[in-house]
Each structure stands twice: as structure tokens, then as C-alpha cells.
């Protein structure tokens, strides 16, 4: 009887696969990425390395000594004191305590301060509170401390915002009106994000993390890239991390461009140069996890996509590896065996500059 290895499905459930099945799934995942992104396959050596990583019997694996990379964080301190909606563990504590716990107890290389609603727009009414918290955190922290939130352009549409919901308009075949609503929303999102970061930079922030760019489609990325450009111009030394929401930038508008490139339909290796052009220091590429496929399929696919992005990017790439991306299971408490294998594969095979 062939030896079976313990793996995971994309939803985290335990499965058992033979080496031949693992290789077949790795190749199928790789082929899917290569086909969609029109990017190169992994080499035979790289596939062998992924098989080795997956079949190590240890529960947890680690990168080879000397290959360690810095880790940046989305959600930041909210994972300590936040509720389940932010994957928080609900420990009553201040955000300063959360940030210091990450630095001094967990060995975090960087940290992020974020608002409990974790989008830029709701930060506006409480900006003074955020500035005060940033000042106190910067007085006590040593690692780079960014301010992070989601661009989340959906908050600018009715019923949450001032502009008519493009989804409702499109259902009524008002395509032009829907596009105009997205254009107006993008202008406001850029303006709000820049204003918020002007305030936080005056309070000593190291920089900003745009977390989940493109979640509301191409308008979301258009607004974020213009905000990055404006912030870089005003603050030449600001640290800017541009992290994506998904692997494919959805073309909800369809005709928005940045630097002469149509944003709709861009894959990670095509997104990275635009983030660099706008003025980001670090790009966060994404590959979505398919919950109906094995961790071998997801790893083959994710490493293929991210390796191409790392190669195409003029700036460092910190791959997004939270729940449901980067071959991490789409599960609230991702299993350590799956997380550590995906993490090691991204460093040793995809060649990422950080996570």
C-alpha cells in the first residue's frame, strides 16, 4: 500500500494523499496559474522542493537558517482586543498594549495600528483619537509602526455613502451612471486617505498600509494608487505598503487606467509595477485559496503566481498570507501545519522578500 501523507483541503479539513497524488495536484494548480496569468511554470527542481516541504512529517516546518524574512501585518493590534469579525481574540487591552505584545512577546518585525472598523472612511470622525494613539505607540515602540486600514470603496456607495450604488445602477442598465458613481467615489476615497495619513504622519507614523486594495474593484485600486502617489509626493520618506485584496483585479468600472494601463483584469505580476510606479515601498501580492482543492493544488498555484509577481516587481514583495490567501486555508484558525508549509514555500521557492 502506498504511503499516504497528511495534507489539508483549502477549507482546512484533514485529508490523506499519496506522493503521486500530491505531485499531480501541485502540477494542476501550477498549470491553472500559468494558464490564467500567462506566466511560466515552475521548474522540476522547484516542484520537487514543494513536494519535500509538503511531505516533511513534522507538524511545523521552518525556512532554512539564514533565509528568514521580515513579516508585516494587516489588522495589527485588533487581533488582540478585537471581536471575531476581525479575527480578534477579545483580550481587553489597549492598542498600545497590543502593539507592544507583538514587538516584545511575539517577535514581530513590524507592527500596524488600525481602527476597530478597519476602513479609512470611518477613521475621519475619530482622527484625533487615532493621532493620540499613534503618538503614544511611537513613543514606546521600536519596530516600524504603520497605520493600516482598508480602502474599502464600497463604503462610499448608498446606503453607507453619498454616491448611488453602482450595483443598483447596473441592474437598471445605467452603465454610464454606474461608472460615474465609481469615479466620484474614487476621488473621495483618495482625498480621505491622504487627509487621514497627513494627520497620522504629523503624529509620528512611520507610514501606511493599504490593506486589501481592489476589494471594490478597479476603482478601489485607482483611488489607492492616486493616494499613494500624493502621499509619496508630500512625504518622500513615508513607508508605504500596498497590499491587494485578491489575485485578479475585478473590472467593475472596466475602463479606469493608471499610467496608461487598464486596471481591470490585472494579475499580481501586472499589479506590482503599478504599485511601484505610484510610489509604494512594498507590494503585497495575493493568490486566493480554493476551498474545494487540496493544499498541494493551492500551493502549486499560489507559488506560481507569487513567483511571477516577485520577478516582475521593482520593489520588495511581502506576500499576503492570511486566512484564505497564499495557500493558507480559508478557516478562522488556520492549522499550523498548513501555515508553516505555505510560509516556507513562499520564501524558499517563490522568493518573496517578506510575508
Amino acid at each position, binding site marked *: 500500500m502506498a504511503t499516504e501523507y497528511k495534507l489539508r483541503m483549502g477549507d482546512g479539513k484533514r485529508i490523506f494523499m499519496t506522493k503521486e497524488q500530491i505531485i499531480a495536484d501541485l502540477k494542476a494548480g501550477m498549470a491553472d496559474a500559468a494558464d490564467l496569468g500567462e506566466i511560466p511554470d515552475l521548474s522540476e527542481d522547484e516542484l520537487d522542493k514543494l513536494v519535500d516541504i509538503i511531505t516533511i512529517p513534522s507538524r511545523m516546518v521552518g525556512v532554512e537558517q*539564514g533565509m528568514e*524574512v521580515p513579516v508585516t501585518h494587516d489588522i495589527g493590534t485588533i487581533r488582540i482586543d478585537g471581536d471575531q469579525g476581525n479575527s480578534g481574540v477579545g483580550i481587553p487591552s489597549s492598542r498600545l498594549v497590543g502593539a507592544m505584545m*507583538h514587538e516584545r512577546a*511575539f517577535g514581530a518585525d513590524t507592527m500596524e495600528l488600525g481602527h476597530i472598523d478597519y476602513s479609512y472612511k470611518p477613521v475621519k470622525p475619530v482622527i484625533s483619537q487615532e493621532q493620540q494613539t499613534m503618538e503614544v505607540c*511611537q513613543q514606546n515602540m521600536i519596530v*516600524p509602526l504603520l497605520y493600516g486600514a482598508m480602502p474599502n470603496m464600497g463604503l462610499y456607495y448608498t446606503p453607507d455613502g453619498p454616491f448611488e450604488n453602482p450595483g443598483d445602477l447596473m441592474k437598471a442598465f445605467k452603465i454610464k451612471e454606474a461608472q460615474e458613481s465609481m469615479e466620484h467615489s474614487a476621488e473621495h476615497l483618495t482625498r480621505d486617505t491622504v487627509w487621514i495619513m497627513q494627520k497620522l504622519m504629523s503624529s509620528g507614523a512611520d507610514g501606511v498600509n493599504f490593506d486589501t486594495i481592489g476589494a471594490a474593484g478597479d476603482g478601489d485600486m485607482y483611488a489607492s494608487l492616486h493616494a499613494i502617489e500624493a502621499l509619496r509626493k508630500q512625504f518622500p*520618506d513615508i513607508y508605504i505598503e500596498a497590499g491587494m485584496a485578491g489575485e485578479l483585479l475585478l473590472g467593475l468600472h472596466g475602463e479606469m487606467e493608471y499610467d496608461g494601463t487598464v486596471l481591470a483584469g490585472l494579475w499580481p505580476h501586472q499589479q506590482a509595477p503599478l504599485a511601484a510606479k505610484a510610489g509604494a515601498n512594498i507590494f503585497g501580492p495575493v493568490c486566493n485559496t480554493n476551498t474545494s482543492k487540496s493544499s498541494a493544488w493551492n500551493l502549486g498555484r499560489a507559488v506560481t503566481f507569487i513567483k511571477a509577481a516577485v520577478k516582475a516587481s521593482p520593489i520588495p514583495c511581502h506576500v499576503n498570507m492570511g486566512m484564505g490567501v497564499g495557500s493558507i486555508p480559508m478557516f478562522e*484558525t488556520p492549522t499550523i501545519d498548513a501555515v*508553516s508549509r505555505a510560509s516556507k514555500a513562499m520564501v524558499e521557492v517563490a522568493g518573496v522578500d517578506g510575508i
Partner: protein
Amino acid sequence: MGMPISHIMTSGMSGIRAAGDLVARMQFSKNMRIGEAKDFVAKKLDLTTDDLSDEYVMRELREELGIGVITSVAGAPKGIAAKMNIEKLLGIDINCCDKFRGQTK
């Protein structure tokens, strides 16, 4: 919580336990790729790049340089004071240190 800690344990540079914060600062402040950032910091510290993730090497060195350590050493530079020493070590400006200097003029 398990996911970020798993990444830190699997791939991370251990922050101020070692030299992860210094390498991250060079990636952010100069757009350095991982190899270049490690080479830069290692040269500044007169170490090998492998040493940058080695707590045994970095623990005493960090205290000696006054750039912050993981344990609470009485009287040692912490927070902005440690970051001011990091500015000098790496030859970079850190925003909150600039603000602090501006307030004490």
C-alpha cells in the same frame, strides 16, 4: 493569533529579538529587496547575514548599541530613544524621531 505567530516562527526574523526591525526599515526606507537589505544591515553591524536572525548574536549587540532589546532592561534606551540610535546606525531619518526633535527645540 495562531496564524501570525506561525509565520513569525516559520519565516520571520524575530523583530527586536534579533535584527528583523532593522532589515524591515531598509526595505521600507530604501525599497531594498531582501538580499540587499540584509547585506546593508549586516555591513553596518559588522556581522554575517545569518547573524541577523541569531538571537545569541543580536541580544548583547543590541544592548551595547542602545537600539532596544526584547527584555525590559532598566535604564536602557527604549521607544524613541532606541529609534534615535537606529537612525544613526542605519543612516536614515525616522519620522517620530524628527517630530520628537522638533518638539524639544
